């Protein structure tokens, strides 16, 4: 039981990290109709900038404070210089161009920071553990990650439903031409949305920094999971991304934790571990297939 609760928390932590990534990606696709394969690069940039500033200053918070605007500004520059030319192009052009951006940013990080990974320490004030339930100590840092993810979800909900800019973003997503005819500067709005998306990816990278190695290409592995999340949630839907991220986080984490024990009930240990590892790695794709059979538009499609 204790292990189960601990794995639930691990799943929640992976889920909110995936939400930070997928919220930005789904926003950009839903509003701007751009498939941005380079979204993972902003996750990597956030992690690298935070690791560097934290190492130089000794302050994780300063690293966070520098990394977020840095990723947002780099994102907005990429939107203005590269993506703005792709809005009216086919999706295959967008895929090729943003794949090129992945290679560009990976090489750039190798040039600036070298081939060796960077390691970020968990900040000392978050290095302990907390007993959320008596007998289950859980790392404070992971709880902080969960808290930040939930706060971001709340912020996005309030921004989209209670603010004028949220209203304008939804209007622009629904009918770009009409929004422009009402005086809304769609080009500026797109740049801001892209900046927000990359800032969230950067935040995910910063939060993952102390848990994972910070290295070139780290964005690609999470990008695949992120695409699974937005397909499950419904492309363009932030609410769908939230539900999808939690589902993927839980299924992935619980599958890896409990499938070996399940398979050991009817297979030898050696075989069980191998089969369980394979099934666990397939589990989120099986989940995606089941959900798409049930709801081809995803769980909470945009504009529904």
């Amino acid at each position, binding site marked *: 039981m204790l292990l189960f609760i601990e794995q639930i928390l691990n799943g929640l932590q992976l889920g909110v990290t995936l939400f930070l990534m997928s919220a930005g990606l789904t926003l950009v696709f839903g509003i701007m109709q751009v498939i941005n394969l380079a979204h993972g690069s902003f996750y990597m940039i956030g992690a690298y900038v935070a690791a560097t500033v934290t190492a130089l200053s000794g302050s994780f918070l300063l690293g966070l404070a520098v990394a977020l605007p840095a990723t947002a500004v780099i994102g907005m520059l990429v939107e203005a210089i590269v993506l703005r030319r792709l809005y009216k192009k086919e999706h295959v052009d967008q895929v090729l161009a943003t794949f090129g951006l992945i290679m560009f940013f990976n090489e750039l990080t190798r040039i600036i920071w070298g081939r060796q990974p960077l390691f970020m320490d968990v900040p000392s004030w978050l290095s302990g553990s907390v007993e959320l339930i008596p007998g289950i100590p859980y790392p404070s840092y992971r709880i902080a990650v969960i808290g930040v993810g939930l706060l971001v979800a709340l912020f996005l909900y309030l921004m989209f439903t209670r603010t004028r800019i949220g209203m304008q973003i939804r*209007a622009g997503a*629904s009918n770009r031409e009409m929004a*422009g005819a*009402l*005086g809304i500067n769609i080009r500026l709005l797109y740049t801001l949305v892209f900046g927000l998306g990359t800032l969230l990816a950067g935040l995910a990278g910063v939060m993952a920094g102390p848990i994972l190695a910070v290295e070139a290409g780290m964005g690609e592995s999470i990008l695949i999971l992120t695409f699974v999340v937005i397909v499950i949630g419904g492309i363009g839907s932030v609410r769908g991304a939230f539900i999808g991220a939690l589902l993927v986080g839980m299924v992935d984490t619980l599958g890896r934790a409990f499938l070996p024990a399940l398979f050991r009930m009817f297979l030898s240990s050696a075989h069980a571990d191998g089969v369980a590892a394979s099934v666990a790695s397939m589990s989120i794709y099986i989940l995606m297939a089941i959900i798409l059979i049930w709801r081809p538009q995803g769980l909470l499609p945009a*504009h529904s």
Partner: protein
Amino acid sequence: MLKVEQIETFYGSSQALFGVSLKVRAGEVVTLLGRNGMGKSTTIKSIMGLTQVTRGRITFNDIEIHHLPSYQVARQGLGLVPEGRQIFPNLTVLENIMVGAANRGGREEPYTLDEVLEIFPRLAERLKNYGNQLSGGEQQMLAVVRALMTTPKLLILDEATEGLAPLVRKEIWYGLSVLKARGQSILVIDKNLDALMKLADRHYVMERGAVVWSGETDELADNEELKARYLGV
């Protein structure tokens, strides 16, 4: 107020407008008449910056607007009620009304929510509904109210009552007459000639991408040949 001078507009290599000129003065209601496909909507799209003008000049209160993007045209004080209404289905009625209100660049005395809802009171009961939950008539009223909340100096309606039931049309024409009485300048496209002649001061008739006649309501009313030839009446 609005001066369109000899504009030419193309869709790809196909020319849609051939030197269209027209004027709307402050406080006037002006119509664009003609059969389908004669260039009326393209003229409006050209004015609003939604279609690129290749030649000619459009000024609004002496400011050149033909090279501006649509959001800057709107901020000069032009409010559009587009063909097909184009309500935002994922926004509530209240959000649809308020979404353009931040970009007011028009009249000195902006419309308030209460004022615009007074013109079409039916919408007041539907403020929390989503745009796609309204009937066609309610959507048209919402499109007018949404444009009014940008406080336009000139309100432009493309097919003001197309596809609406007779009673709903009556409500729309009544709303427009209220706006006219308040001094609102209006440029309107519609096929209901009787209602337009009661409302409007002047008319432009278009044929194959060009203005072939312009004049006041009395002149149009007396010109049976013109109505038969270009308007199919």
